[in-house]
């Protein structure tokens, strides 16, 4: 069905993306959040309406109008009121767990929300991510001297971590780019690595281009012609706290992506330029 397809296209939530383990759902009935006009409104004058608003004397407001204009204003008031209620209801249903209403009218909610009002506030919830996911890459390169060889695994996430360390203002390119790209890849692929629809394809292209951009900056591959690349995601659980009695498994688990042939479309020229431009400041950041 077209509609379900569309929902799955969006289901992995493109915006937001603080690390969270998406776990089980239970009902979180929080629609009190909707009725919030009270406080600031009170400070600013909604509630003092009970005492001090000089009706019409400010030369404005509905009281200052003659009847025909009042009708227009009243209609506008009604429209605004309805619009606010509908919008807030839609946003509420969008952020609420799947429930009777969204199961029945999910399509209407999605039509209203996507793409501009999409939001995800499961910040480190229900559980914070408890493992470090590293992306590593190796490449099959051809060099003038010794022909075809395969490089060792290069840890791209470690480059990010290095750039973030002691950096008071990390860039999105360091903190979000690779982290969210691999999320996107894993979300848009089934466990055996087959892409789900166009988004799966897009995420493969994206991963490849990120990998090529990062490899491009490596001195060890200077002058080498990269023919194929392979990525893998390495998941290492965060060790349990020292003060905890818990024991957790420290062993890393690996998920290999397929070997990909590199084409011209995977070489991000412009980005490489921007890297070079950025190299000077980021080096001083690391030096501090």
């Amino acid at each position, binding site marked *: 069905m077209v509609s379900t397809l569309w929902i799955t296209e969006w289901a992995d939530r*493109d915006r*937001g*993306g603080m*690390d969270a383990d998406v776990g089980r759902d*239970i009902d*979180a009935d*929080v629609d*009190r959040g909707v*009725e*919030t*006009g*009270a*406080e*600031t409104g009170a*400070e*600013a*004058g*909604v*509630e003092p309406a*009970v005492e001090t*608003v000089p009706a019409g004397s*400010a*030369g*404005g407001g*509905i*009281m200052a*109008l*003659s009847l025909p204009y009042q009708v227009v*204003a009243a209609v*506008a*008031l009604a429209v605004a009121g309805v619009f606010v209620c509908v919008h*807030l209801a839609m946003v509420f249903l969008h*952020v609420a767990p799947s429930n009777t209403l969204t199961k029945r009218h999910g399509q209407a909610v999605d039509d209203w929300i996507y793409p*501009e*009002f999409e939001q995800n506030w499961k910040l480190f*919830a*229900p*559980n*914070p*991510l408890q493992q*470090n996911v590293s992306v590593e890459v190796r490449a099959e390169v051809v060099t003038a001297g010794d022909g075809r060889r395969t490089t060792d695994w290069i840890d791209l996430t470690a480059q990010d971590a290095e750039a*973030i*360390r002691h950096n008071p*203002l990390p*860039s*999105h*390119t360091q*903190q*979000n*780019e690779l982290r969210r790209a691999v999320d996107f890849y894993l979300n848009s692929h089934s466990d055996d690595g087959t892409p789900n629809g166009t988004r799966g394809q*897009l995420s493969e292209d994206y991963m490849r*281009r*990120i990998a090529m*951009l990062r490899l491009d900056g490596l001195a060890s591959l200077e002058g080498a012609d990269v023919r194929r690349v392979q990525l893998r995601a390495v998941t290492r659980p*965060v060790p349990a706290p020292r*003060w905890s009695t818990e024991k957790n498994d420290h062993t890393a688990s690996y998920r290999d992506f397929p070997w990909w042939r590199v084409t011209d*479309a995977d070489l991000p*020229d412009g*980005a490489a330029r*921007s890297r070079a431009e950025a190299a000077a400041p980021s080096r001083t950041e690391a030096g501090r």
Partner: protein
Amino acid sequence: MSGPSAPRTRPREPFDRRIARAVQAVTGRALGPHQTAIVRIGFSLTWLVFLLRELPHRHEMYGPDGPWSWELARRLTADNRAFTVLMWSDGRVWFEVVYGLAVLSAALLLVGWHTRAVSVVFMVGVLSLQNRSVFLGDGGDNVLHLAAIYLVLTRCGQVWSLDARRAARRSASRAAVKADRGPREDIAGPLLWTVLGGFLLATTWFSDVTGEWWLPVLLWVLWLGHGLWWLVCRLAPGEPRTLLDVLANLTHNAALVVIMAEVCLIYATAGWYKIQGSRWQDGTALYYPLHLDYFSPWPALSELLGASGIMVLLLTYGTVIVQIAFPFTLFHRKAKNVLLVAMMLEHAGIAVLLGLPVFSLAMISADAVFLPTAFLVALGARVARGRDRVLGRRSAGTLPEQRRAGEEHGPRTLVG
């Protein structure tokens, strides 16, 4: 502030009378002038800091040849119909123009220059860049995205803006020269309107690749509305103008309610999902983000904080309690203010500990909508004094906040 005792001290007002007063209040004034101004300042500052910080990385993030290339973005936006003017052309020049305009609009919105028009450009900039590379964002980008849309509908330049200063000067000079109608005509407003009109034509021309239909429609409505306001102010300053003022107030107040509700939904969602997680239940949740490579810029500091199980427990439970309680405390002023301070401090902590300063600044900007007016007025006065001292100016003294809200409503749109 009236406080809960106010209704008791006077005879109970009939219901219809109270309704009438409420209607007059939401149509007669744009409520929360200081709150909307601080939200405007907060978010424009956030976006400005972000854009300047990412200046060296801009090509990699949003440029046509970045890893998320123009072609990939085209394929995704063709599917999700997100609004972005960057799909108009894959040229580098166009990209630089859009990025430059985004920076400029953030700076201008910060100082409140032709706020209503600039807020629209600001929104277009935010949406265009964020939707161009949606997989780069985090929660901070998400809240900024929403705020940029909602701010367009508010009169967020009533105080603490160049607009407010201009309006104050105009009403002062009008008082001085009673006979003179309109001392100096503002050229910038109509000029801006004309330029944006050209831009709007381009948006319509490219509407196939710009996103969903309703955003260009909204832009047209806003543009025509600004033009109408200008005309009405000059040709029909009586009732028609009051009506337009009523409509603008209504829109503002509706948007303000939505912004406040959004903030509550953010905390409610964040809190209620957390209590379902085992790590938030056993009080160890905070320990884990502190040990993620991507969120530990200061490993020694993270180590220090994570070393004490009791400390982690207190902060973990505290976070959940504050987030869940916040929407309910809105019914009690003092409790709300205490929690507001707690949340802002927590975000300040997150900025440093987890290395998320831009995210934190965005969240603090959103929280600011709930700051009490008295505090904001005092803050404004203090900032103004500080500014005067730095600039060696003598304080104007009479109008600490430049222009009192709700008094004489001068034209507040771009052409005003």
